């Protein structure tokens, strides 16, 4: 029951999601607190919302890695264990995302062949046939992780973007094989020798040209790019608005046009709104929501988790890895 506005907004978001039907929700956290908040919603009485008690939690400033050992009954651990036992199909967290990730690794486990979870996002508007991995789950990466990101991205492109044979590219500082840092150079070698459709390196100015369906990078670079990309629309609007001050009537028109156009520049993961994404590679569905999520974002995150469960993303990833390990194209 984490998040900047928890438990109020988180409980409200769960109630919103439950009103859509077709979902049973367990709120994991302090039972007393949750019962009090849930009691505020008359509609919750008829909805499928239950409480799973967990009296411990991982604070924002606490090391999630250390907490694995010392707080096995904290809320994210309890939620992860519910997924592992089959009591729940997915867990959603707006709390410390590293804690959710670490709990997922420890208590649910990773799909065989995947080292750590990653976050995938489709670029949408400017490059509708391109997705990027990793968008922030792994700040420091080992070379083999880039290969895993490529496989995860391939599954995403096939499953959610309808691309039968995704082309993979590695984000680097130059097109040549020897460009990039040590991990990227080694990753190039692994991708080149894989059975994936590897298009080589691409540079930042080629991200949006549609040359690649899956762009692979570490989570540090991916997260910086994600935030830059999401901010482009707003900055373009401000800049244009300043320029158009000389022409007030045209300015209003341009503002309306830009508002319409640039809403679409947000990177989206599945039906995602409000930040976060599915943690790909975990042997179960885990959906991270932005820490600052309000109720509608929480409801969207629950919807996104439902979509991932319905789309059988974990099974698809396992099948693609199996195919890849046998020498086929992932």
């Amino acid at each position, binding site marked *: 029951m984490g998040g900047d506005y928890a438990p109020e907004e988180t409980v409200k978001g769960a109630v919103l999601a439950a009103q859509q039907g077709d979902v049973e929700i367990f709120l994991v956290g302090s039972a007393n607190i949750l019962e009090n908040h849930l009691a505020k919603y008359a509609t919750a009485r008829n909805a499928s919302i239950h409480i799973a008690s967990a009296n411990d939690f991982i604070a924002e400033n606490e*090391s999630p*890695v250390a907490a*694995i*050992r010392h707080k096995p009954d904290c809320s994210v651990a309890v939620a992860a264990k519910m997924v592992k036992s089959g009591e729940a199909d997915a867990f959603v967290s707006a709390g410390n995302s590293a804690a959710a990730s670490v709990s997922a690794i420890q208590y649910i486990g990773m799909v065989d062949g995947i*080292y750590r979870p990653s976050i995938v996002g489709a670029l949408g508007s400017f490059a509708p046939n391109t997705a990027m991995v990793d968008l922030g789950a792994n700040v*420091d990466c*080992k070379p083999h992780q880039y290969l895993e990101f490529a496989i995860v991205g391939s599954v995403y492109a096939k499953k959610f973007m309808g691309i039968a044979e995704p082309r993979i590219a590695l984000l680097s500082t130059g097109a040549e094989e020897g460009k990039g840092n040590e991990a990227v150079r080694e990753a190039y070698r692994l991708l080149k020798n894989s059975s994936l459709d590897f298009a080589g390196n691409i540079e930042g100015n080629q991200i949006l040209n549609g040359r690649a369906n899956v762009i692979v990078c570490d989570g540090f670079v991916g997260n910086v790019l994600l935030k830059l990309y999401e901010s482009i629309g707003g900055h373009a609007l401000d800049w244009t608005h300043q320029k158009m001050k000389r022409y007030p009537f045209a300015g209003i028109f341009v503002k309306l046009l830009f508002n319409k156009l640039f809403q679409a520049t947000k990177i989206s993961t599945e039906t995602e709104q409000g930040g976060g994404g599915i943690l790909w590679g975990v042997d179960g569905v885990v959906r991270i929501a932005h820490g600052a999520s309000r109720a509608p974002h929480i409801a969207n995150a629950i919807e996104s988790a439902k979509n991932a469960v319905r789309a059988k993303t974990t099974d698809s990833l396992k099948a693609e890895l199996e195919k890849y390990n046998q020498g086929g194209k992932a």
Partner: protein
Amino acid sequence: MTVEEQIREIVARITRVDPSIITRESTFKDIKADSLDVVQALVAVEELFEIEIPDEEAQKFQNFGNFVSYVESRVSKAEKV
């Protein structure tokens, strides 16, 4: 399988390295293990040998050999009891 071999297998599986490169002198840094790898290895070893490794002891491990020696001593003590 000896205690050392079992621990080497756990560490290699978690860090995704070839077990043969892990020697008693190898540090976690040598095998590019991060803090999550280390904790996962500790948890896995604790579960396998049914022991608890206090943080203050774990922090003293300078290399793989220290880790193995500590677990060996705990396992042999448990066997004597």
